[in-house]
């Protein structure tokens, strides 16, 4: 059996390894090593836990069996999941972290002796507060992530669900969570503990339903952050350094990602959380007069690109939906054979989660040094011959720079219109998520390619 001090040191080591795991992600070269550190930290934490309990007779086999079952399911999912489904997967994983936190909190509440927290009905006050916070945040993470998962998977409509009195109701529930925690701590009543959990599940659900599909990058990052805080809450209860360090890391990581995503849309965090965006703007675009649009076919597009010397590709969520990343890479290969310079421009909120487009392009064997972020590449559009917009819309809309009335005014956009010509692959002229018309469609130098992204890309390749 490991002494408490020694195991605390090992937990500290695994906490440090987790920090190194995140640190490794600063560049693709060091990232694989970082992931290895993460795995090592996890192995140390689990081994130390077994050794510090030192009881290998009762239940040990059962624990291993459950560990193995979970591990097999996890490994199976990890190998089978298509890269386009990463947002759903991450949302699903968040919900599991949340639920695990809830279960651990329940276990600790029912059997506090096992965790040295006192006895049932007489749990140390500090531990009870920490436990309640961990359980409540875990429950919110769980139900919120389930909704996010359903929306991303398309089982639930991505459009915001709003009703009258939504915000006062949510505020009321949040206040009741605080009151319940207070009462729970003063009475130690197990009924209150269950009510607290039920209310937390409910608020997680209510908080996410008003948020629309394209705001999912913020939601996923936010839930990522919550899962961290839940873990930290449990870490305090268990007095476990590894869990506290990890919880803090994950919590701040998710918070930073949410911030980056909000900035990418020029919206405040509260504006996104309050939801309802994109639901009310539809009417304004319909009243507009029909404006002329130039549309072309794969042949025209191939002609334009063949005569270009540099092409910038702007991928968006539509590329993921159409699974067009491989076809796109093949097109780019053909272009490169003709000595045309090609680079990719990624908007921070392209796709349904942070870095979504980068992963898809990496999957299609696009070297990461050809892929650029908004700030890195935005000045290059003016010198490029062709911009190939595939599956993106709002992030290219020049209205964000020109029309203060527009809901997306002030949002950083890619300066696609500065290119000599713009090829825009899209199914129809329908407005994007923000519900506003894209001025780019009607520009003199824009050629619309109405087709499925994958099919159009393949056709262009044939014509090159």
């Amino acid at each position, binding site marked *: 059996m490991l002494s408490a001090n020694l195991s605390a040191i090992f937990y500290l080591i695994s906490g440090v390894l987790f920090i190194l795991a995140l640190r490794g992600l600063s560049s693709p070269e060091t990232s694989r090593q970082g992931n290895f550190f993460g795995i090592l930290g996890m192995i140390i934490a689990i081994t130390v836990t077994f050794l510090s309990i030192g009881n290998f007779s009762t239940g040990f086999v059962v624990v291993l069996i459950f560990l193995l079952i979970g591990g097999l399911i996890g490994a199976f999912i*990890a190998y089978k999941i298509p890269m386009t489904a990463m947002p759903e997967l991450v949302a699903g994983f968040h919900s599991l972290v949340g639920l*695990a936190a809830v279960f651990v909190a329940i276990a600790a509440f*029912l059997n506090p002796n096992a965790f040295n927290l006192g006895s049932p009905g007489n749990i140390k006050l500090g531990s009870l507060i920490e436990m309640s916070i961990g359980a409540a945040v875990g429950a919110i993470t769980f139900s919120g992530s389930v909704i996010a998962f359903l929306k991303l998977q398309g089982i639930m409509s991505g459009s915001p669900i709003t009703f009258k009195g939504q915000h006062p109701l949510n505020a009321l529930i949040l206040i009741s969570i605080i009151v319940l925690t207070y009462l729970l701590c003063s009475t130690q009543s197990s009924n209150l503990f269950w009510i607290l959990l039920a209310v937390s599940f409910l608020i997680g659900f209510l908080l996410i339903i008003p948020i629309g599909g394209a705001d999912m990058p913020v939601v996923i990052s936010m839930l990522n952050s919550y899962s961290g805080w839940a873990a930290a809450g449990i870490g305090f209860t268990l007095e476990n350094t590894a869990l506290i360090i990890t919880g803090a890391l994950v919590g701040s990581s*998710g918070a930073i990602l949410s911030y980056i995503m909000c900035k990418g849309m020029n919206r405040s965090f509260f504006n996104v959380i309050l939801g309802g965006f994109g639901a009310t703007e539809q009417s304004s675009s319909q009243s507009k007069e029909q404006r002329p649009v130039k549309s072309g076919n794969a042949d025209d597009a191939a002609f334009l690109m063949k005569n270009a010397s540099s092409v910038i590709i702007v991928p968006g969520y539509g590329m993921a939906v159409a699974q067009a990343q491989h076809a796109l890479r093949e097109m780019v290969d053909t272009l490169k054979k003709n000595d045309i310079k090609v680079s990719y421009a990624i908007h921070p909120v392209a796709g349904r989660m942070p870095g979504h487009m980068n992963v898809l392009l990496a999957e299609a064997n696009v070297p990461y040094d050809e892929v650029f972020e908004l700030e890195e590449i935005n000045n290059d559009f003016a010198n490029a011959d062709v911009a190939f917009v595939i599956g993106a819309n709002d992030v290219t809309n020049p209205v964000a720079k020109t029309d203060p009335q527009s809901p997306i005014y002030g949002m950083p956009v890619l300066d696609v219109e500065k290119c000599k010509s713009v090829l825009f692959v899209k199914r129809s002229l329908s407005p994007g998520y923000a519900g506003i018309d894209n001025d780019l469609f009607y520009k003199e130098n824009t050629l619309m390619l109405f087709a499925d992204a994958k099919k159009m890309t393949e056709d262009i390749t044939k014509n090159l």
Partner: protein
Amino acid sequence: MEIDPFIFRLSIFILSIFIGYYVVWSVTPSLHTPLMSVTNAISSVIIVGAIIAGLAGSSDNIFNTSSIFGFLAISLAAINIFGGFLVTQRMLAMYKKKKKDK
């Protein structure tokens, strides 16, 4: 007067938030998706608590309510740990640099 051990844990917590802040800002945006999946995996270190709960049952009654919740939490966390690290590995393996001119 002695300092409550809680204060030490709180110090670790606060300092870790700052570490997280600086470390995550240094993550390159193209790796934000792997960042999320790896944070998923490491936050499942919560399995530590699940194992303690699972092993807490007495020898004649392994399956009391508390340990059953522990067992379930072990499985959930294990899905995340294996799934999270492996899918991160799979993603990171795809990030390649441009090949030198042929």
